[in-house]
């Protein structure tokens, strides 16, 4: 894989910004569309407009949706499993993949670990490619005070992203890269869990909306004490997973000589979550690298208002395999 200050292979991957009025035209021709139901406008409206033969809602228990509030359009799959791997594998057992299917996944309402595992699984079975979309809000309902998650139940690696870590005698080889978001509890939990690690913070910049950068920095500052040793702060667009992946690659490569164990935690935007996954799939499998996450048993299902635009990312696993050093 080629990455240098001028060019990066990560930039080969396609992305496209779609106006709300063009969703039906541009997001069409799919065999399967998968979305995670929550009551936000940007999730429901997009679901109605995407054109696919089969449209599936995943109903996550973390959103605590009553049976009476289930959507009446699309096919609902109620997730019963506690862990993300079981949740996704159970869904795929109920609705098996067919070779050649064109799949589109709406990441907007997806619980992060479940989204990550789904992509990991598709990569494992050598699925050629999948489109992932993300709908940007106009704003978060309570600005920097928006609460996204409930109490944290545990901090652990996401299934499928567990690395093989060493325990060197010297204490300075652990690095934690955090995609900093709005949720101080999550950032606090992960920093406290890895208090010994050297921290690198990745901020979504340019942000999804201009005011969100300030809000993001305010929230991160509130848990700066928990972060402790922050070696570097860097920036990757909040809407671009591939530049995010490139940024991670650059930062890790620059510190390669010092890193014994690497922990990645994407707590910012969904596109950045995709970026962390993409970097992991490109460079980190079977390495001492884990994507770790502070898990919560409940999430707020309506945190935003409006729909400003939709991003489509072509997660091309074949292309990734072709450019990745074995």
């Amino acid at each position, binding site marked *: 894989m080629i990455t240098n200050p001028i060019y990066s292979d990560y930039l080969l991957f396609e992305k496209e910004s779609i106006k709300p009025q063009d969703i039906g035209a541009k997001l069409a021709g799919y065999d399967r569309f998968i979305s995670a139901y929550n009551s936000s406008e940007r999730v429901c409206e997009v679901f109605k407009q995407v054109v696919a033969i089969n449209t599936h809602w995943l109903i996550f228990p973390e959103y605590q949706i009553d049976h009476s509030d289930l959507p009446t359009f699309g096919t609902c799959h109620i997730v019963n499993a506690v862990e993300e791997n079981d949740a996704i594998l159970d869904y795929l057992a109920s609705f098996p993949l067919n070779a050649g299917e064109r799949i589109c996944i709406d990441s907007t309402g997806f619980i992060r670990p479940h989204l990550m595992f789904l992509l990991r*699984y598709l990569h494992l079975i050598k699925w050629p490619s999948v489109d992932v979309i993300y709908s940007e809000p106009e704003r978060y309902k309570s600005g920097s005070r928006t609460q996204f998650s409930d109490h944290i139940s545990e901090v652990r690696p996401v299934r499928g992203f567990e690395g*093989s870590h*060493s325990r060197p005698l010297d*204490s300075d080889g652990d690095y934690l890269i955090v995609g900093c978001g709005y949720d101080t509890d999550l950032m606090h939990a992960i920093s*406290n869990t890895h*208090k*010994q690690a050297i921290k690198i913070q990745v901020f979504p910049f340019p942000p999804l909306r201009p005011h969100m950068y300030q809000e993001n920095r305010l929230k991160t500052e509130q848990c700066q004490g928990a972060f*402790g040793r922050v070696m570097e702060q860097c920036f990757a667009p909040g809407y671009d997973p591939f530049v995010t992946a490139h940024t991670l690659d650059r930062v890790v490569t620059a510190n390669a000589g010092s890193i014994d164990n690497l922990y990645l935690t994407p707590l910012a935007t969904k596109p950045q979550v995709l970026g962390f996954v993409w970097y992991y799939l490109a460079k980190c499998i079977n390495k001492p690298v*884990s994507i770790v996450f502070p898990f919560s048993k409940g999430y707020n299902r309506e945190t935003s208002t409006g729909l400003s635009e939709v991003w489509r990312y072509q997660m091309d696993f074949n292309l990734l395999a072709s450019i990745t050093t074995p």
Partner: protein
Amino acid sequence: MSNPFYLTRAADLDDNQITKLWVDPSSNLMRMLRPASRLPMLILGGRGSGKTHLLRYFSYPVQRRVYGADKMLSHVRDTGYLGIHTRCMGLYTNRFTAKRMSESQWQALFSFYVELWFGQLILQTALDFIKDANALDSFDENDVVRQLIGLFDDKPSQVIQTLTEYSAFLKHLQRDLDGQVNMASFRQPICPQFLINSGRLTFGIPKIFGESIPCLKEIQFTLFIDEYEHLYVEQQKNINTLLRERENPVSFKIGARLHGMRTYQTWGGDEELKEGSDYELLNLDVDLRSDKFNYQEFATELCLARIKFENSGWPSGWNDQNAALMFAKTFEASLPVEETVRLQLQKRSGDSPWIENVSSALTAHLNVVGKLGINNAQDVVTILERLRFVDNPLIEKTSTFIFYGAWEDQQNLLEAAESIQNSALEYSLKPKPENLHAKKLNHFSEDMRDQMLADLKMDQNVGPKGLLSRYLGVETWIRMSDGIIRNFITTLKHVYDWALFRGEGIYSSSAITLSSQSQGVLDASRWFINDANVLESDRGMVDASVKRIANLLRKLRFSEKPSECSLCRFSVNLNTTSPQARRIIEAAEMWSFFIRDRDRRQRNPGEQLTVLRINPLVAPQYYLPVSARGNIDLSAEDCLAIFASQNDADFKRIEREKVGRCTPPFNKRLIDYDNEPDLLRLSSI
């Protein structure tokens, strides 16, 4: 200029800093830890008590920095041990759960994993020591490796001849096992290449080294296992079993949070670890607070070490002899409370607020106090004349306190006021021990001072001149940290942050202003509460419980007639408390919101009570005292309402009952919260 207290956790320090910032006056910590002792040790302590710093300092890599690699042969021989530090967090042993596998399957795999984990650490440390001791040629490496390979029942297929190759072999096994455990997420079966019984490598490797390598003869391998609370119950059982079935030359020091030992059970039937025979216990913060450890000296020396390290030497004008004094003098001193009160009273016209409060209370309850000799408004005026003592606000305030006591005791209030007047005069001239004011002030002086500030509305909005002044100054912060050194460092961090932000010279006399100090101490208090990483639903309940009990203690403390002085403790019978309340109390204790006192008072014969107090670092947010004296007893019903009830109604009822007894008219009538005086609404917490 940078903040010398910026990094507050041992985990944030690199090995060089761990070394340079180590403070151990009189080698007390070395004596407490006893790294070469064969009997394993459990080191329990609150967050920030210094467990990690202690364990890391005595580990081989840090000791090598302290003494130098070339001195390690003699040092290890003198001390008799090799210290191997490892942390349970970061290995994410929660990988060994679920994935549709049974507990017994995970037990076997985790046991094997622990052997590979410990085996690699022991091997690496021993190799480092052998190299430092220039002892690579002092033994038959092939023979040693042959013996190490013999620890496995099945021989590996590859050729292994050196210790480095053996270490690589163990690492390969670990990575293979990791890979399979990780792939189990995709429902792929796990078939490790080898399995090995628990203890084979942990005890086998050191034994072989001890017998075959001269420089390791009679040297103990001490495993410092830190952050034990991150292991699940079944995983702790595994290592507990190693502890119990320990073989020389290996021992263990396990560091865990309070209540971080999820179990004391082992895999040996129903056997549990027994204190005294299987392990000894070190309660780190309890011992640091105790008389046998000079905590004040320790805390001061630690600060000075930080300042010297940060500045690569002493600041200008400081030296080894005067550093402690110079440090103490950098903080602006606050005015004595009486001085502040006098200044505030001078700005007022009319009576002091506590005299006005007596007037209001008597007027509001004339129908009640009629039985106590007060029949009309003139009687009230007479009483106020007798209680006034304009020359000394503290005496005057105490007079009102004694007066409320007389009211509670249903005495004739006119006569009581006369006695109080005489006592006040006597006290101001030459008090005798039996003098009413002397007896009260002997216990309640701090409460009286704080109540005066509260009555004058000098809460946190007024800044450092008011109630916050009680929490300022180095000596106070050392007391507030209460044996948890990180709390002290964190307070200094926040104070210095504010001082630097304001451009104050942090190494000059009286440079760090009262404002910076008060802002800093409030930030530190908020940090302490937010830093607790209580997981899941306990977090919300612990937060609510701490607020409830702290608010209750505050309201009692600032009531007209508090029954106990310096009230910040409460006692419970954990045997009769509901399991849910007990769990929340223990969670709050684990996260150091509550500190367990040594007292175990007996209310009734045979009843054992556990006495807990609010962590002093929480105190500034609730205006609670830093020094703990007074205590309230909580019944099982009280505990249910405070620590286990999801809604506030039960707690409010308990609170009204208890506060009502300390508030005029001192009967069991529930106080009317809609009309409660502002005294009880000090802050919007």
